[in-house]
């Protein structure tokens, strides 16, 4: 009996599910146009509360079967505001005009691995950057650079100004101590590798030999390969509450990039061409110290005076000589897109050729993209995106060293009265004040990165069931990201520091790096339209990611003559690092939408990975969210006195993971040489065979408000993110034979606020103005530390270092200080914090008739840097402000002498406020009337600039620096970087 009833229930359920209701049906058809009266192709038309939908055809026509004689139709189109229309009984023809006044509320934002949701229903503050925001104001050569100042909650910092980029992106504070702190990038569903791979310069600079083991080669980040012009939109999942769907790789957030696609254009191709010419110059010139015979003798002794007199006191502007190159920048973009009813394509080609502000440095990139969408059957869509990039970056030789050989260090060590210019025959004199002649170094060395990268993704969507009350889709995705990075560093024997047996008598370092990412996924998405406007959306699926990296670095020294083949060397050393990883995951999520009033979701992602001690153990990451659109309730909608057109309260919780550094599970035996043979010796780190991912837990809540017919939108978000049991290689009893063990060392908490304001004060035919403010602030705290407090990063307490300490900020900068001020037990004073007090970005777009003016202002308030460039200049008496007197509180010492007097006494003077206010982007465009060109094409001329105006007190080239690249902590340290640049562009764009 029992069995029968179960069966009965089941069949009843199935009947409910599949039964087609027998009601009065009505076919409605019409045309959709924009405000100018032009028909719109591909507008989505959906019967509200059902799965029934269609799109407009080439003539802007649609025809839809309504299940009832009357109902509501929803018309939506990208870039236009969504409209909901009541169709009365008996209506058969229904035309609609869509307005281009789309607000942020109409954006679709990601909500699951296979789904998105209208922003007005979203429970997370997901930042979105549109193509217009990304590259509309000015020319961008890299994606990371283009995101600057556009994401609330993100802290972007470039590692220096070397052509080809290199940037650290931290979402909502510090995400890890020893693991990866950079977000995961997903481009069209493909996991996009963003490694920063060193080129082997350390063999010359020896930067990582004394005290600091961290890589200081300042390589570029591989996200730079992506062409910003190809991007349709970027969505930023800033914390675990939104990123939980990406599981154990999402602990530092996820950046989802969608590239452009073709649209149904009735077969007619749309072509856009643009060419820009630009120039870049040093962002801020510091000048040089004014030397006299007297100061030369006082500071540099008899040798200094001798050189001064030998050159007759003639000085040279070496800053101009080294950093004064007017780097020309050329960018060509071609985009062709189009489509018909069943297929659409987008083809993008771009070529970038940039010269840096230092001669012989530059960046070249060619990118080719082809995105195809094809309807195979009525129920099956295929989508393919593919991208090939070839780039080459000559990055110069800057940053920290322990050999005084980088151009940066040697520049600050050289007084302007020394003559290091080459003679008429091209021979460079030895630099009498430093081991290297930086002009010779600039002209003779090579530090090149060449990338060949192919990324391709394929996605197959099958609509298995399409009925009035339900739909079921199957989505299959496969993505491959492969690149080869060749690094080449050449230091010929003619260099001052390689000649006559110095250095390593010449060096060639060749790196070959092959990286391959592959990700597969399969999802089922079911939508069920229950009565009373209750919509259930269920998704479940599986994922698999594989990662394989093989990096080989060959370093040849003691070169023969001017040869650069590694065979032509007295000694060759090889290094190889391989990383292999395989992850498998499961994902399920249920979203419930009641009348757009209440939108809730509940989901779980479970992952296993070979990176964990137990590769077969599942780690699960739950998420839950709730959004309540108060303004959608009848009592609100019908209240004429309601000030707010939109009032939404939202809350979301989620967890995500982050792997410990590769190798943490292994107890390797490292190679040693003894008695003429190679031996195996146990490494210092004990493998942790039970290690799992670090876990980020985030609770986010907020309110979205819309006023003045949603012309004024305001969003307010609070979050609290906890990195529970973050990993650190802790010191263990050395009688085990090991020294460290990667294990849970404590808890780290980030709390923050993000506020956004969107306002369109004017939107008239001839004049419109849109303005957007974003303000954000983050604070971190080490809430638990299982090991004693320790210093971390930087160059030790004399110069300033980070310190992890329970109850303190994770980014506090400490250093030695005077006895009265210093903590008696540690001798340390907290001199600063790398975390900014807040950041503010302000975007404006104004259009007047055919003119378009836009700018982006970015203000970072607070946040300190450890400035060692100035100290290094002081040590050679070369800092531009050496003779000024505004630092010493007693007024006795000049700035240079004061800073030197503090070395070993207090680190205070090296830690500086790195606040800045800058006009990141500014552009003025003029759209020439189409009739000038017989309506064949449109031409747009644009003048623009990046970093045009920079206001900061920080005593160096640019407060944005990171000698240590993309490390989780320990950025914000400056050691003679490649200075940042400002750039100007003239751009002509043609569309037809």
């Amino acid at each position, binding site marked *: 009996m029992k069995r029968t009833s179960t069966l009965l229930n089941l069949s009843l359920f199935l009947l409910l599910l599949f039964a087609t209701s027998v009601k009065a049906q009505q076919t409605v058809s019409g045309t959709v146009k924009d405000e100018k009266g032009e028909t719109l192709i591909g507008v989505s038309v959906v019967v509200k509360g059902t799965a029934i939908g269609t799109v407009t055809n080439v003539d802007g026509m649609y025809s839809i079967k309504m299940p009832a004689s009357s109902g509501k139709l929803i018309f939506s189109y990208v870039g236009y505001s969504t409209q909901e229309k009541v169709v009365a009984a008996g209506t058969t023809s229904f035309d609609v005009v869509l307005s281009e006044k789309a607000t942020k509320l109409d954006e679709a934002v990601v909500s699951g691995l296979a789904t998105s949701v209208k922003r007005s229903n979203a429970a997370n503050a997901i930042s979105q950057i549109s193509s217009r925001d990304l590259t509309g104001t000015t020319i961008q050569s890299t994606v990371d650079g283009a995101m600057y100042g556009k994401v609330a909650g993100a802290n972007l910092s470039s590692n220096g100004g070397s052509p080809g980029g290199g940037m650290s992106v931290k979402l909502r504070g510090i995400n890890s101590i020893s693991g990866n702190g950079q977000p995961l990038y997903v481009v069209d569903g493909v996991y996009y590798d963003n490694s920063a791979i060193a080129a082997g310069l350390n063999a010359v600079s020896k930067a990582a030999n004394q005290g600091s083991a961290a890589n200081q080669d300042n390589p570029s980040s591989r996200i730079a390969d992506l062409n910003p012009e190809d991007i349709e939109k970027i969505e930023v999942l800033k914390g675990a509450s939104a990123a939980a769907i990406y599981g154990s790789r999402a602990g530092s957030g996820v950046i989802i990039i969608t590239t452009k696609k073709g649209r149904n254009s009735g077969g007619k191709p749309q072509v856009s061409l643009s060419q820009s010419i630009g120039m870049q110059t040093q962002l801020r010139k510091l000048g040089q110290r004014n030397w006299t015979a007297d100061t030369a003798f006082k500071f540099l002794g008899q040798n200094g005076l001798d050189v001064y007199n030998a050159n007759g006191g003639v000085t040279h502007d070496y800053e101009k000589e080294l950093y004064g190159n007017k780097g020309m920048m050329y960018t060509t973009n071609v985009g062709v897109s189009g489509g018909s009813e069943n297929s659409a394509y987008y083809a993008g080609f771009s070529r970038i050729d940039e010269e840096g502000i230092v001669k012989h440095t530059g960046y070249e990139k060619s990118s080719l993209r082809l995105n195809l969408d094809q309807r195979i059957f009525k129920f099956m869509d295929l989508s393919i995106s593919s991208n090939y990039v070839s780039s080459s970056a000559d990055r110069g030789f800057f940053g920290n060293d322990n050999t005084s050989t980088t151009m940066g260090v040697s520049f600050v060590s050289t007084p302007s009265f020394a003559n290091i210019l080459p003679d008429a025959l091209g021979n460079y004199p030895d630099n009498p004040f430093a081991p290297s002649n930086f002009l010779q170094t600039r002209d003779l060395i090579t530090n090149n990165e060449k990338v060949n990268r192919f990324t391709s993704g394929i996605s197959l969507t099958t609509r298995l069931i399409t009925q009035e009350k339900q739909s079921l889709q199957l989505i299959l995705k496969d993505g491959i990201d492969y690149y080869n990075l060749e690094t080449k560093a050449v230091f010929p024997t003619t260099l001052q520091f390689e000649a006559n047996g110095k250095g390593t008598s010449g060096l060639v370092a060749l790196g070959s790096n092959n990286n391959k990412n592959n990700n597969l996924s399969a999802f089922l998405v079911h939508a069920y339209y229950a009565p009373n406007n209750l919509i259930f959306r269920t998704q479940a699926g*599986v994922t698999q990611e594989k990662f394989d990296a093989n990096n080989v670095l060959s370093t040849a020294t003691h070169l023969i003559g001017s040869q650069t083949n590694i065979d032509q060397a007295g000694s060759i050393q090889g290094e190889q690092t391989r990383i292999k990883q395989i992850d498998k995951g499961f994902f399920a999520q249920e979203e419930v939408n009641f009348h757009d009033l209440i939108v809730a979701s509940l989901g779980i992602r479970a992952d296993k990975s070979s990176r964990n001690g137990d590769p077969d153990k599942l780690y699960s990451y739950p998420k839950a969210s709730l959004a309540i659109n108060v303004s959608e309730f009848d009592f609100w909608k019908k209240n004429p006195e309601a000030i707010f057109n939109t009032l939404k309260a939202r809350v979301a919780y989620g967890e995500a993971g982050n792997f410990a550094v590769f190798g943490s599970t292994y107890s390797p035996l490292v190679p040693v*040489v*003894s008695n003429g043979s190679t*031996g*195996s010796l146990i490494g210092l780190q004990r493998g942790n065979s039970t290690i799992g991912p670090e876990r980020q837990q985030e609770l986010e809540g907020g309110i979205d408000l819309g006023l003045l017919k949603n012309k004024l939108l305001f969003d307010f978000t609070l979050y609290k993110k906890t990195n529970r049991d973050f990993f650190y290689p802790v010191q263990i009893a050395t009688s085990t034979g090991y020294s460290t063990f990667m294990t849970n060392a404590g808890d780290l908490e980030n709390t923050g606020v993000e506020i956004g304001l969107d306002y369109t004060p004017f939107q008239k035919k001839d004049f419109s103005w849109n303005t957007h403010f974003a303000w954000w602030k983050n604070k971190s705290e080490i809430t638990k530390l299982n090991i004693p407090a320790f210093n971390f990063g930087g160059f030790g307490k004399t110069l300033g270092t980070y310190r992890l300490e329970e109850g303190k900020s994770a980014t506090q900068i400490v250093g030695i200080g005077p006895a009265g001020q210093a903590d008696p037990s540690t001798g340390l004073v907290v001199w600063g914090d790398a975390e900014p007090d807040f950041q503010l970005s302000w975007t404006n777009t104004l259009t007047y008739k055919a003119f378009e003016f836009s700018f982006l202002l970015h203000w970072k308030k607070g946040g300190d840097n450890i400035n060692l460039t100035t100290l290094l200049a002081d040590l050679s008496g070369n800092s531009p402000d050496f003779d000024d007197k505004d630092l010493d509180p007693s007024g006795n010492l000049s700035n240079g002498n004061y800073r030197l007097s503090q070395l070993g006494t207090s680190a205070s003077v090296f830690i500086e406020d790195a606040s800045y206010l800058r006009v990141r982007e500014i552009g003025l465009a003029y759209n020439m009337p189409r009739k000038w060109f017989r309506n064949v094409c449109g031409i747009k001329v644009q003048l623009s600039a990046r970093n045009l105006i920079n206001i900061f007190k920080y005593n160096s080239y640019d407060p944005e620096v990171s000698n240590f690249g993309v490390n989780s902590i320990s950025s914000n340290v400056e050691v003679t970087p490649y200075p940042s640049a400002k750039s100007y562009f003239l751009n002509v764009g043609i569309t037809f």
Partner: protein
Amino acid sequence: MKKYKTTKIFTGIIFLTMMGLSSCEINPIEDPNNPSEAVISANATLSEIQNVVDGSESALREQLNQYYDGVSVIGREWYRFSGSDPRFTSDLLGKGAAVLDANTFYTTQPFAARYRAVKNLNILIDALTNSTAVTDADKRRAGIAYAKTLQAYQLLMVLNEQYGNGVRVDVKNPDALGLFLDKNASLDAIANMLNEAHNDLKNNTAAFPFNEYVYGTTPSQFDKFNRAIAARVNVYRADWNNALSALNESFYNISSPLTEGAYHQYSITGGDLLNPVYFPPNSTGETRVAQPSFITDAESGDTRLNKVSLRTTAASLDGLTSDYDVAVYKTDVDPVPIIRNEELILIYAECNAQNGTTTEAVNAINTIRTAAGLSNYSGGTSTQELIDEILKQRRYSLYGEGHRWVDMRRYGKLGDLPIDRPGDDVWVEFPRPDTEN
């Protein structure tokens, strides 16, 4: 319509295949960059065993500079001057209120390096025990005995610095480390390890399942090294008879060259180490200079003063001055002795002096004195007088080899070591590293 259905079914199958693909197990990925401890321990090939042997012998040399600086500075044999680290002249000499720190490199690094070698030798023992490539039980026994001998030597080095704190002998399982034994129990345990190994080495006619470079080539030859170390351990235990019988089975020979023995080797081969106790003469900034009493206390004509060399200018730092560089090693690839005949002859002298067999003791002393260009011993022959003479000969014969401090300590004579600056201290032992608590 039928076509559509087929396609739908087909996609369903693809989906199920992918599900299947994803739901299956993930196999562990072996370390792609290095051999792993687990794999080597479980079933090593003969060449992997050889790698672990070479790695262990290399490990014996790690951080020896820190060890020799530690014991030689406290033993007032030399000063270690460093422009970048003041602690060699403050902490190690007990300047003013300075004391030895439990968490500083001079304490932690030599300690960790010795245990790292012990760990590597434990991996060797596991590899030998489990490897299917080693088929002969005698070979296996010999190999394990080799490893235990070296482990005992490493633990003795730790005990030399830790002394009263004792050492941890059982460190096989990192999750369940044995307790620290007291000083005497530590010495007993080390002696036991040596004896066990000795039993497996003596009369073992099988060959080692690898090549070793410490001493000899066969197990029975290597046993002579084992016994030499055992003689040293027994002297430290004041067990004179056992020391003498160990000597008997060691490479001790009163008429052999004094330099005969076991050494750490160095070379300029890429990846190999250079002699870490060598500094070029007349260095500035980083240097080792002789404690002046080494020169002033010497008998005239003692050729062993060639272990120091006169500097062109005196070296001074932190209130300390010396005219002499330490010149025990003449080049950066000179081998560093582990134990050699000169020490064994002096052990022979010491045991006989302690046992009252005066003639044998004096005979051995004279062998040493003659070699140093000195006349025969003419002092008293009471045990005390002979021991004083032997300690003096040890001071000059084994200068810079890490003995002075240990010798003075075992005879309770640390108070006799010279104090250079008022308020300086002579430490009895290094503190136990913080990470061990």
